[in-house]
């Protein structure tokens, strides 16, 4: 079981879709941020799994190593996004006095 | 020819004028604009004199590579038709500018600039020998007219002008696709070399042999047809015209009627026929039927127009119907008559709009029913108006007659039935024009006009000055149409050789029945719609009607 790529991939996709559900459903901006983090982790899991099980094409670096590095990059990107996102959340919170995204609808149509 | 790029000079003199107007103070705008318009006129007269009617092909050709990547060139050239139309354009532009000295009091600078740019576009269209360049000039014409109607126009001007631009744009954009597709077809057949793919002469040569593929011909001709039919305008694409005419300022209507409507007809003759002869032959019956409808229909609708300008506008629809009819019967007389009719219509309708403007200046009203007895109060105006009204009725001896009759003779050869139908419009034309003339000019002075008191003055010297040249030309071309006919007879023959229909064009019953069925279907459908919910003009920005 723990030796099958599919298991890990499905797990990853589960995490991804849970995150997407959160993103679609939660009202609180920060909850949405967290959901995005979940999605990214799902992606990471998939990447690592591929790295662990994938066949390294001839002449390329070992896939596992590539995978880890890519995952690392993704983490960094996630961190950056979190920084930016939280900054924006705080800024809008100052204006609107609420973290609830569905009340940010001054602009529409 | 001389080394002097005469055509470029004619084309771009007004542009220089526009720049000059832009730089110089507004007080000088009128003078400068008129000056450059007259310069252009003089230059075009040089062209007229220098042009040698006998020779085939184009003269004064200027050809420079412009966008080598696609073989697009800056190529101008003149043949008989172009020469005639260019001179018409320059003349009427000068007159129109002169005529708008008094009426236009606000934003005179912008006005003159728009007008000169407009002139550039129109001349360019008539001289361009590169399909791409042609399209560019074609579109350039739109913008100034859009502004002229929209800024200096009447109450409902914004609706009118947007309708005008959008309507025209739909057609012309499809034409762009057609132009490009044609160019590619040429390129594909010349080992992927773009050289000559936009050059009219090359394309024409290719069109005569081996000729473009049927599918392309039909599609491309369809697109060209739409663009030109809207511009002419042919039934049922004509409804922008009455609005545009009614709302445009006097000079705008003049140019619109006198020159811009000719762009479409010119396009048919210059591009649509030579490039897609087979498709043209295929389409001809339909177009003839549409032209006949336009001729009769325009006249009938004109009979009940309460608004003077609208009446003239619908008469334009009717008269331009003769042009398209003459073009698509593919006979020497028909085509020559069509071109003659283009020029005559330009002179006569232009003059009519000028005269309407004269009265509008004084009364600020165009309702025929409120006029009456002008002959007593403004005899000169009444006389001149009468002159042009009869010219428009097609009175022999004035230019209007020759063109129409040639078209009819040409049509008769191709299809007597069509000629018979078209000839009946002689009655209707007399009907609506004389009704209007009698209503306005005869009888006792109407209460409305009496109310104006002495504000209702006769024509001023300037106004007369604007009309004298037109009247003279109308008489000259009426007595000596040969002056024009010989100018472009050669070109006409060339064009016809390209099309050369085997047999007289039989209008298939299918075309007629189809047309009628469509009309009826339209009536039924539309009536239903109207009954369901009354539709109002929507193309206008909210509150657009207001000043």
């Amino acid at each position: 079981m723990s030796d099958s790529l599919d298991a890990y991939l499905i797990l990853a996709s589960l995490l991804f879709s849970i995150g997407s559900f959160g993103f679609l459903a939660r009202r609180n901006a920060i909850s949405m941020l967290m959901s995005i983090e979940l999605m990214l982790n799902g992606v990471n899991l998939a990447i690592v799994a591929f790295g662990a099980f994938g066949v390294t094409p001839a002449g390329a670096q070992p896939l596992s190593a590539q995978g880890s590095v890519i995952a690392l990059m993704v983490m960094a990107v996630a961190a950056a996004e979190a920084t930016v996102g939280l900054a924006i959340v705080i800024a809008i919170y100052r204006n609107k006095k609420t973290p609830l995204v569905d009340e940010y609808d001054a602009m529409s149509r | 020819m001389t080394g002097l790029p005469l055509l470029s000079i004619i084309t771009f003199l007004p542009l220089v004028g526009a720049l000059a107007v832009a730089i110089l103070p507004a007080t000088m705008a009128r003078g400068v604009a008129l000056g450059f318009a007259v310069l252009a006129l003089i230059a075009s007269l040089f062209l007229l004199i220098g042009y040698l009617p006998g020779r085939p092909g184009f003269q004064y050709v200027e050809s420079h590579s412009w966008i080598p990547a696609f073989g697009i060139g800056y190529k101008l050239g003149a043949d008989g038709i172009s020469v005639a139309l260019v001179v018409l354009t320059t003349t009427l532009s000068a007159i129109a500018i002169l005529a708008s000295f008094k009426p236009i009091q606000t934003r005179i600078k912008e006005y003159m600039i728009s007008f000169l740019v407009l002139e550039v576009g129109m001349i360019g269209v008539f001289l361009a020998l590169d399909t791409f360049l042609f399209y560019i000039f074609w579109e350039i014409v739109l913008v100034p007219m859009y502004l002229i109607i929209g800024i200096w126009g009447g109450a409902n001007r914004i609706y009118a002008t947007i309708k005008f631009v959008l309507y025209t744009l739909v057609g012309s954009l499809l034409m762009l696709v057609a132009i490009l597709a044609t160019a590619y077809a040429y390129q594909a057949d010349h080992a992927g070399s773009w050289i000559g793919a936009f050059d009219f002469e090359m394309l024409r040569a290719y069109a005569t042999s081996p000729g473009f593929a049927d599918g392309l011909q039909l599609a491309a001709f369809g697109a060209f047809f739409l663009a030109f039919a809207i511009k002419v305008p042919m039934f049922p694409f004509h409804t922008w015209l009455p609005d545009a005419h009614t709302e445009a300022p006097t000079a705008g209507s003049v140019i619109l009627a006198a020159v811009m409507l000719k762009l479409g007809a010119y396009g048919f003759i210059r591009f649509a026929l030579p490039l897609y002869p087979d498709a043209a032959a295929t389409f001809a019956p339909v177009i003839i039927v549409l032209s006949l409808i336009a001729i009769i229909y325009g006249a009938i609708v004109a009979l009940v127009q309460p608004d003077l300008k609208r009446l003239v506008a619908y008469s334009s629809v009717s008269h331009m119907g003769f042009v398209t009819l003459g073009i698509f019967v593919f006979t020497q007389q028909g085509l020559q008559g069509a071109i003659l009719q283009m020029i005559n219509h330009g002179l006569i309708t232009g003059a009519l709009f000028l005269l309407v403007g004269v009265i509008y200046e004084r009364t600020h009203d165009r309702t025929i029913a409120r006029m009456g007895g002008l002959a007593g109060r403004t005899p000169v105006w009444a006389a001149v108006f009468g002159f042009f009204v009869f010219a428009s009725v097609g009175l022999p001896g004035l230019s209007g007659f020759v063109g129409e009759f040639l078209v009819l003779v040409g049509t008769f050869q191709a299809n007597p039935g069509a000629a018979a139908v078209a000839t009946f419009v002689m009655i209707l034309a007399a009907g609506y024009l004389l009704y209007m003339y009698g209503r306005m000019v005869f009888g006792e002075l109407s209460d409305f006009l009496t109310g104006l008191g002495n504000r209702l003055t006769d024509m001023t010297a300037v106004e007369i000055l604007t009309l004298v040249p037109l009247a003279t030309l109308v008489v000259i071309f009426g007595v000596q149409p040969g002056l024009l006919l010989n100018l472009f007879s050669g070109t006409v023959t060339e064009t016809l050789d390209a099309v050369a229909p085997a047999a007289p064009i039989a209008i298939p019953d299918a075309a007629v029945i189809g047309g009628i069925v469509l009309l009826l279907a339209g009536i039924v459908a539309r009536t239903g719609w109207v009954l369901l919910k009354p539709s109002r003009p929507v193309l206008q920005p909210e509150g657009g009607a207001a000043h």
Partner: protein
Amino acid sequence: MLQRSIPIILALAVVGLVMGVAAIMLVFLGQDWADALFWLLAAVMIGAGLLVVTMRDIIRCGLAMIVCFGALAGIYVLIGAPLLAAAQVIIYIGAISVLILFAIMLTQTKDAPSRLVFQTQAVPAAIASTVIAVVVALAIAATDWGELPERVRLATDAMSSVLFSDFVLPFEVVSVLLLAAVVGGVFLAKREPGGPS
């Protein structure tokens, strides 16, 4: 009170179930412990994930997220990427989660936790995300990955060499990325003297 704790109960149920399965596998079926561990961690991760997106109190959501990431780290170890697991712990649990918790604190309104957890469109959202999950899962199942029979343990030195040979440029770019994020973030989060507090 009851439906308030439903998500928790649900999550615990999932966890318990899976742990039970794992226990059974271990004890009775004598399978190797890795599978069991996989199940365990997976269960914890999914359960925690569900809690993150369902719980009302956002602070608990944050905590649940930490749990979730922890479990994921475990899975990384299991899959043979211990270094990454470490990074996971450091970056996510260490940095991001804390950052988020701070943000939560900053944006807690007086009337928090708020009345409604979910959007009006929670149901369609659930459907949509389920469909995504199903589609992806089907695609995965239907695909022959030509994968190895068993997972490759990652050699740390290999990773470092890769990082500093092939991926040196991305590495540098990431630093720039973070720099930009920080610069902007600071500007945006900084309270304006004149601005509303």
